[in-house]
């Protein structure tokens, strides 16, 4: 049990990362009812955008100074690809059967991976990503925060609060809510719903870039396939929290991250389950949790039952 606080800290950092990506899934789903399965690749593209800025800067630039520029570079790349995907891949299919955009998303995901693999210099293997030098920060007695996790632990709540405020209080945010609840009626109010949809993709892209930088810092590397498992986990987090709900996405991410960390730490100590613990099984436990939640609460933790919708 003495490992519990440390497990929570590790889980929180991982969960914040999932949550940032999950918000991208949930925003788009909330407005156009599309699962953008290429969103993991939007994260990956953000990572390569940030890496490009890092490589372009003088080699002796301190990471704290480089980080804001890397975030901007990553966000430009992610937002550009996400909004282009909306405009050219999804918008023409808006009135098509549900399956068509879904298959398009999967195709787009593979295409984006292969484009980076083929055209980004040396992307056929993993590329190193800068990390902060130095030891982990020690909080109270023996609880440590990795230096590279500080970024995501600060960035995720900040992004979340800013988005929550924007959606609840601003005129455009209210237009987003209206479009999510009833797109035709939103048009009757004078809302340009096409613009709102682009904005949802753009916000998801920007959050994806923040997540990509966090993932690169944690792992010390990025690669063209990184979006697959990250995207799948974040999608799980979005469903767990209740798809369509931005706070649910972050909550789902944190629950999933802590569950993963706890599973890797504790399950090996349960008699008879030694082989099922450790890091290698964490994905299994993450998806087992998803199945469990869907059995007990299909609408997710903060989701509303679809039947309640007017």
């Amino acid at each position: 049990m003495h490992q519990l606080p440390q497990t929570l800290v590790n889980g929180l950092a991982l969960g914040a990362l999932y949550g940032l990506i999950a918000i991208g899934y949930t925003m788009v789903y909330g407005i156009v009812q599309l699962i953008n399965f290429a969103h993991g690749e939007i994260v990956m593209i953000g990572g390569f955008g940030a890496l490009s800025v890092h490589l372009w800067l003088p080699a002796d630039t301190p990471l704290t100074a480089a980080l804001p520029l890397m975030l901007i570079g990553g966000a430009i790349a992610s937002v550009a690809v996400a909004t282009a995907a909306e405009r050219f891949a999804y918008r023409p299919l808006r009135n098509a059967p549900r399956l068509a955009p879904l298959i398009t998303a999967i195709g787009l995901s593979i295409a984006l991976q292969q484009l980076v693999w083929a055209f980004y210099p040396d992307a056929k293997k993993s590329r190193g990503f800068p990390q902060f030098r130095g030891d982990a920060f020690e909080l109270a007695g023996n609880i440590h925060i990795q230096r590279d996790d500080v970024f995501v632990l600060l960035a995720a709540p900040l992004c979340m609060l800013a988005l929550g405020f924007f959606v609840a209080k601003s005129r455009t945010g209210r237009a987003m809510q209206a479009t999510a609840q009833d797109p035709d009626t939103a048009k009757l109010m004078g809302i340009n719903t096409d613009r709102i949809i682009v904005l949802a993709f753009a916000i998801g892209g920007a959050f994806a870039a923040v997540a990509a930088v966090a993932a690169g810092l944690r792992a010390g590397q990025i690669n063209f396939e990184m979006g697959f498992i990250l995207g799948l986990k974040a999608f799980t987090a979005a469903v767990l929290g209740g798809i369509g709900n931005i706070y649910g996405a972050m909550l789902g991410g944190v629950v999933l991250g802590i569950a993963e960390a706890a599973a890797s730490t504790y399950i090996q100590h349960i008699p008879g389950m030694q082989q099922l613990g450790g890091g290698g099984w964490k994905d299994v436990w993450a998806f087992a949790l998803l199945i469990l939640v869907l059995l007990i609460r299909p609408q997710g933790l903060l989701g509303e039952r679809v039947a309640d919708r007017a």
Partner: protein
Amino acid sequence: MTALLEVDNLRVAYGKIEAVKGISFTVEAGQVVTLIGTNGAGKTTTLRTLSGLLKPLDGTIRFEGRPLAGVPAHRIVALGLAHSPEGRHIFPRLTIAENLQLGAFLRKDGEGIAKDTQRVYDLFPILGERARQAAGTLSGGEQQMLAMGRALMSRPKLLMLDEPSMGLSPIMMQRIMATITELRASGTTILLVEQNARAALSLADRGHVMEIGKIVLSGTGADLLHDESVRKAYLGED
């Protein structure tokens, strides 16, 4: 003088099924004009086309003499055409006040918006009492009031009401009809679609009877109320 709204030979189709088969009518400023008819006559389709949600197959729509062809729905409200849709379609998870603010989405005059909000609350006091409540918690009749109030918030030159009495109790229906009469007295131009033909015709300046996509009969509200065939088919009299 040109009419506020001129519809000429309008045809609208869903795929291969033609729902509106070439109708023509006009609405003069200050008038209440009603379209009556049974389910499937094409009334709602007509309104949805006028507000830009559906694209016409053929025909012209002119609003203040200006053709509406190719103008997207979110621009049409800016021209002064507000639509309170069938089934109310309020935003259920936003508050009543937020729903009304969305009705004024394109307006920038804060003072005017506040004044019009108050006017809606005067018209429907229950909305003022519950301004901070989620709109989905209102009863059907109250939601209808909110939908009408929201449409008024754009200060429309033409207010289109689709089935405002649908699913309401007789008392609630009287309230809504009385409000339409009030609006008419204050000079609001209204295009009213109703299944309740008696109520609609008794307050309309002009009425058009639609049957399977066509206007089969037109006249003043009073004429149609006393028309033999209308009485038989729509007023339930023998």
